[in-house]
């Protein structure tokens, strides 16, 4: 069976100022996988996603989404940024933030109408946040804020989802709710790429994994490459104990 390649990264090098943060990354992500990106803090995981999404301009390399440049394929891609990247004290409501997911398809100037609102309400329902739709975002818990971000991406109705640490600072019930949504996305044939920190849960949650630490260490099916060798190469210390309980 030949799988289509959803995301292809070629020779990608990214630097802030003059210090390279990603070095010569080659990566092929097959369609329909639920993939974890793992690596220590500062490994460049967020940077990789931002470069793929065109938020950062790379020094070298190219990105393609289903064989075409990202600019032509925007509508196929949704993004869940790291929760800490925005100011949650911003004066707006949960529903309003989820509605932002529809802005891309609306384009300039046009305002969201009933159709967009309906889509946003459906997404809120999926993440179990409907009762909080009119809640001021600063008055949501960390887990609830994360669900709102997820709902905003769901509204985009994309084929490929990039999520930066969606499990960061959430309680157990939110974690289960989120992983169920991710698995449902995969089941629907979507490709989901998740920056993940909890190594213990990688085999349980994901079927594909990429090890990253400035350079790409390895990428492939979890059952083939999620082993002590790659963990040690990525994290620099022996991970035997922590993984094989």
């Amino acid at each position, binding site marked *: 069976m030949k799988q289509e390649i959803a995301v292809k990264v070629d020779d990608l090098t990214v630097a802030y100022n003059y210090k390279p943060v990603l070095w010569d990354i080659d990566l092929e992500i097959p369609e329909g996988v639920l993939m974890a990106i793992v690596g220590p803090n500062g490994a460049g995981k967020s940077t990789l996603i931002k470069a793929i999404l*065109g938020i950062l301009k790379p020094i070298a390399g190219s990105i393609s989404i289903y064989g075409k440049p990202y600019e032509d394929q925007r509508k196929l891609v949704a993004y869940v*940024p790291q929760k800490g*990247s925005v*100011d949650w004290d*911003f*004066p707006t409501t949960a529903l309003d933030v989820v509605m932002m997911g529809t802005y891309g398809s609306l384009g300039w100037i046009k305002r969201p109408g009933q159709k967009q609102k309906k889509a946003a309400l459906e997404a809120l329902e999926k993440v179990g946040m409907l009762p909080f739709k009119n809640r001021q975002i600063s008055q949501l818990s960390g887990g609830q804020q994360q669900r709102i971000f997820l709902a905003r991406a769901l509204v985009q109705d994309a084929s490929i989802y990039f999520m930066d640490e969606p499990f960061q600072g959430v309680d157990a019930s939110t974690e289960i709710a989120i992983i169920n949504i991710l698995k449902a996305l995969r089941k629907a044939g979507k490709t989901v790429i998740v920056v993940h920190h909890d190594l213990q849960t990688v085999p349980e949650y994901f079927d594909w994994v990429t090890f990253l630490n400035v350079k790409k260490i390895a990428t492939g099916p979890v059952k083939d490459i999620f082993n002590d060798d790659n963990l040690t190469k990525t994290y620099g210390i022996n991970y035997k104990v922590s993984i094989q309980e």
Partner: protein
Amino acid sequence: MLGSFAVLRKQSLLGDAISHAALPGIAIAFLITGAKDTNTLLLGALVSGLIGTFWIRGIITKTHLKSDTALGLILSLFFGFGMLLLTFIQKQPNANQAGLDKYLFGQAATLVERDVWMMAIVTGICLIVMLTFWKEFKILLFDADYTKTLGFNTKTIDILITSFIVLAIVLGLQTVGVVLMSAMLLAPAAAARQWTNSLSVMVFLAAIFGAFSGVFGTAISATQNNLSTGPVIVLVASVFVVFSFVFSPSRGLLFKQIRFIKNRRDLELHKTLAFMYHIAESHENISHPHTVRLLNNFQGYTKSTLQKLVDKQYVELNGNMWNLTKKGFETAANLYTKQTTDDE
């Protein structure tokens, strides 16, 4: 009004930098044209304000400097240069020289009808642009990276917002002057933020606060001979800010303090009740009377808390003896289980 965007971008210093950056523009425009015509001078201010702003951006993106540092740098550079030019102009044997210093502290009294019209028109244009690009402004302010992934040219939106802030500042220069301008820009917005959690209401309130400060400040300064208008307007705006920070129902200091005290009182009451519950529990009959002295060992117990418990009919007092009522016992029992579940 536009100050709202500046406040939300945490770029409060930007207003300061822009208004100071406008000063050399005024001076240069005067030197070149020799005219005191307001529009010419304000055009100069606009140009140098914009130059200053885009330099600041350039410095932030191209170097390691933090934005505060870049702002401060440009601010002092342009202001120093502007003051130098002003001094130079003042030394010139030119009868026209006076009147430029009004841009330092502002002088609303010198406004003529035409200036007011001009302000009204520009404000109108700002309003239309703001309503047109409301969605874009909002999403950019909340989450710039995400906005980019959706395909919006964030630079365009950003330049639009910044240009309008600069324009608003330049127009206000004549009224409140370079030195106080940023206060005028930010104060109404900061005050408005205290009262609402909605962006549209915030912008609307800021506009009202700003307009009210202007009108009220002008009125006050008109009653007094030697009160200049600009500072009085800013003072009125500041009163709004202080008032808002103290009295706003959800974010204000006063209500926070009241809530805090109330929560602590409730907690003390609950603790005392829980303590009584423990004592009562050790007896078969829950309403068995105990001596008040027993409670003295318990920290947080006061006569008034006991009295409150009596008022709520949780406790009955007989001389020096107290006993829990059935209602009190049940409340305490619930409290106890609730606390233990909360602790998980």
